[in-house]
């Protein structure tokens, strides 16, 4: 246990020294600043025009949920970038650079080494995603006076999502070179998002094949389902015309997550951990 914590501390220091960390922080600050300006402008605009009055649409809800949905998408994307870059070369990449061998020959064991690396990456990504999501929620609330129906669940979904991406990338790092692993995980991330959009189209047009594809993809890549579940939680108390229009928007069409999704996400994480442990134990360095 102490060996894993030592590695986690070492990996944590390494994480914060990587250039990608600075790049992501700069991008995040830029995003939040633009988000604040955009949100302020959007709410000012709807207050002036009251466009939805005739349709009995709650303009603040529509604007707030759409903007926060956009913020959630961006947060998940930036969190994914961070998770991938912190883990993409953790095993094979580090072994090829000669960084890994001096650590592996120590008595702590390979499992502890993996656990340490994962703890550090997951901790950094989880803290990052939680902070950005909380900032975006507060900006939305302060700028427009709109707060999500359930502000906690979407944040937890995003946190769990990036933790899964970090675990997936760590597993991939055992088999693939750093570049190949980064590409593979980003492709998986993209495939998940594409499947989510297909599901949205399938729901709107009532096409079973598209809905089935989205459903299967959600189980195979649960970070997408967690994100969808989070979007759904934003407006879970909204009904009527507002709910219909939100569903038609780019961040609508979301599916409810539910406890089964969370149980599956935890099981998925454990499966990734078991696969990584087994693969790393058998890998020649």
């Amino acid at each position, binding site marked *: 246990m*102490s*060996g894993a914590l*030592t*590695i986690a501390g*070492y990996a944590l*220091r*390494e994480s914060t*020294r990587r250039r990608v960390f600075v790049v992501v922080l700069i991008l995040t600050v830029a995003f939040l600043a633009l988000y604040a300006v955009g949100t302020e402008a959007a709410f000012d605009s709807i207050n002036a025009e009251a466009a939805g009055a005739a349709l009995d649409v709650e303009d603040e809800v529509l604007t707030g949920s759409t903007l926060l949905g956009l913020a959630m998408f961006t947060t998940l994307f930036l969190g994914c970038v961070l998770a991938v870059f912190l883990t993409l070369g953790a095993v094979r990449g580090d072994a090829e*650079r*000669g*960084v890994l*061998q*001096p*650590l*592996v*020959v*120590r*008595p*702590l*064991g390979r499992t502890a080494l993996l656990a340490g690396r994962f703890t550090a990456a997951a901790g950094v990504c989880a803290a990052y995603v939680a902070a950005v999501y909380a900032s975006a929620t507060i900006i939305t609330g302060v700028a427009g006076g709109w707060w999500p129906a359930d502000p906690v669940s979407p944040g937890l979904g995003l946190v769990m999502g990036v933790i899964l991406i970090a675990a997936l990338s760590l597993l991939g790092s055992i088999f693939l070179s750093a570049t190949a692993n980064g590409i593979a995980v980003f492709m998986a991330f993209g495939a998940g998002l594409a499947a989510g959009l297909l599901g949205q189209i399938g729901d709107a047009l009532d096409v079973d094949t598209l809905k089935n594809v989205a459903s299967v993809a959600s189980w195979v890549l649960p970070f997408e389902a967690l994100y969808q579940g989070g979007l759904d939680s934003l407006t879970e108390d909204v009904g009527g015309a507002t709910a219909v229009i939100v569903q038609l928007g780019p961040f609508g069409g979301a599916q409810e997550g539910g406890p089964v999704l969370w149980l599956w996400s935890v099981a998925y994480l454990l499966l990734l951990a078991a696969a990584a442990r087994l693969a790393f134990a*058998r890998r*020649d*360095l």
Partner: protein
Amino acid sequence: MSAAFECRELSKRYGATVALAGVDLEVQPGELVGLLGPNGAGKSTLVKIACGLVRPSGGEAQVAGQQAGSAAARATIGYLAELFRFPEWLRADEVLSLHQRLAGSSGGAAERGDLLELVALADAERTRVGAMSKGMQQRLGIAQALVGTPRLLMLDEPTSALDPVGRRVVRDLLLELKRRGVAVLLNSHLLSEVERVCDRVAILVGGEIVARGSPAELARAGGVEVELDSGLRAFPEASREQVPEIVAELVAAGERVYGVRVLSSTLEDTYLEAVEAAS
């Protein structure tokens, strides 16, 4: 007391490639054994199996009586890889501190100071790895390998990046370790280094040990050469013990003797012969 390292019929295959084909080797406590061989001979694979970095395909390997690769075995070794890198942002002292924690060493600052002193890096305690020359990093790597007072030290090409002064530091260090009873398995291409410090040498070619013995045993007698008025005369079958007799006969025959040289093949000659014969 069990051998510091022992392997029997050790083999390793990477797909169709045979890296080790039934190697037997033993390193006793306090013994310095050199592994020689061309690139791809299996030297690094052998060391990596001993460290637990590579799983053998067959045979067995033990470190201090424990199965190689087990936590108990890894607790008794120090290892310097041929290609290694420490994070550039760590200071020399921090590198050693990290490895102390991983090795469970309670040596603290005193041990770190001693190790840096031992590899002539006492002044570089606060220097970041990124600011060190390749030679300094190599010596820091050796200090790292010595954290926790290992019983068996495995060094893979430890002097490859060092200048003559650095090599001298490592050579003296190896002799000091030997004096302290630490067993050393040394992989090197530098035959002169191996010849100077090793008690025994094993020459590995194509995954098999083709010659082994002390450097003196491997460097065979090569005859006697005598300098006369008429030039050099060679006695290829003669040994050192026959020199007085040869000189006496030459003088009795009216020759004037200006010098005598006992010839022996060097470890390099033996190595080259072994490699050529095996290939």
